[in-house]
């Protein structure tokens, strides 16, 4: 507050008071009057120049803004055009794939799509429910880890599974099973226990073979010693969804045609 008061009280230059007190009123000579006139002329010029400058600069910045807006709109149009073209091309590809007369080729494609995980599949197989132990909150060893799930899935592949999904997330050759913080993520989606691992394969041998693999033995150990839940059931009709597009899209790898 003192600062503001000081500002207001001394708003006029103190020199005016000092000079007035010393000389009893300012003297005015021709030279000093000319100086005052010059300074005032300078002041007026300054104000006019500032005003003119602002008026000149204003349209320039407005023009720039307008030009940028036009540019943005043009780019947006291009993007939507290309998206439309992409959709058309994708439809063409699908149509061409359907009209392919080569039965063996379409059979190969179908098979590869199942292997790649880009189409939903159904079939007999095993459904395994695994979950944390009841006392997992107190004892962290009772938790299902990402490595446990990896081991489980690996064991299923090894035992002859043809398609595997965890909690309705289809696994592909690009999928990862890893822990992110508290949760385990598959295909970058967080899962919550219990984890339902479904595997399509030979219903007669899949479960038995799995239990004999190192993965099966490890899980039996986990169940016995740490109280993890492990329930395996043979099912006649399992439905596995397709993997998300991001887990089947190839961006960098290209097939080498002349290898064979």
């Amino acid at each position, binding site marked *: 507050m003192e600062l503001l008061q000081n500002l207001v009280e001394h708003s006029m230059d103190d020199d005016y008071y000092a000079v007035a007190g010393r000389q009893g009123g300012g*003297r005015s000579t021709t030279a*000093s009057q000319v100086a005052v006139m010059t300074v005032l002329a*300078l002041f007026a*010029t300054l104000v006019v120049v500032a005003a003119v400058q602002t008026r000149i600069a204003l349209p320039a910045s407005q023009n720039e803004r307008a030009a940028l807006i036009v540019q943005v709109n043009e780019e947006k149009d291009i993007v939507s055009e290309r998206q439309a073209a992409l959709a058309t091309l994708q439809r063409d590809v699908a149509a061409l794939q359907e009209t392919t007369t080569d039965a063996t080729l379409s059979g190969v494609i179908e098979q590869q799509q199942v292997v790649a995980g880009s189409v939903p599949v159904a079939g007999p197989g095993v459904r395994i429910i695994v979950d944390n132990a009841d006392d997992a909150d107190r004892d962290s060893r009772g938790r299902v880890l990402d490595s446990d799930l990896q081991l489980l899935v690996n064991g299923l592949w090894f035992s002859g599974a043809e398609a595997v999904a965890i909690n309705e997330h289809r696994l592909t050759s690009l999928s990862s099973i890893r822990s992110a913080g508290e949760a385990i993520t598959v295909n970058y989606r967080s899962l919550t226990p219990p984890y339902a691992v479904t595997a399509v394969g030979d219903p007669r041998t899949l479960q038995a073979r799995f239990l004999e693999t190192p993965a099966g033995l490890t899980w039996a150990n986990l169940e016995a010693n740490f109280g993890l839940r492990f329930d395996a059931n043979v099912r006649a009709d399992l439905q596995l969804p397709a993997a998300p597009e991001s887990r089947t899209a190839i961006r960098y790898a290209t097939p080498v045609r002349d290898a064979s």
Partner: protein
Amino acid sequence: MIALLGLVAGVTVGLLLQPTVPVPLQPYLPIAVVAALDAVFGALRAYLEGRFDDKVFVISFVSNVLIAAVIVYIGDQLGVGGQLSTGVVVVLGIRIFANAAAIRRHIFHA
């Protein structure tokens, strides 16, 4: 009379020549205008109070403009140009309002 003559001459010169301010000097123009306004209002108040002095006015005007420009320049060099400009405008603005109030009192006796 002299003052009016000077103002008219300045406006005429400014409008006729329309000098373009070099780009490096443009940031200082608004601050210089505010500082000059402060000096002119102070002078007007001093004139109405009968204390006006040519020398004090010329010196206060020139030094106000220069100091304001220097503060902005230093601020720009130190990366706090915007804040220092704001500070200068606030202080000078308060002074201008205080002087305007004094001038009002002198003219309208209210």
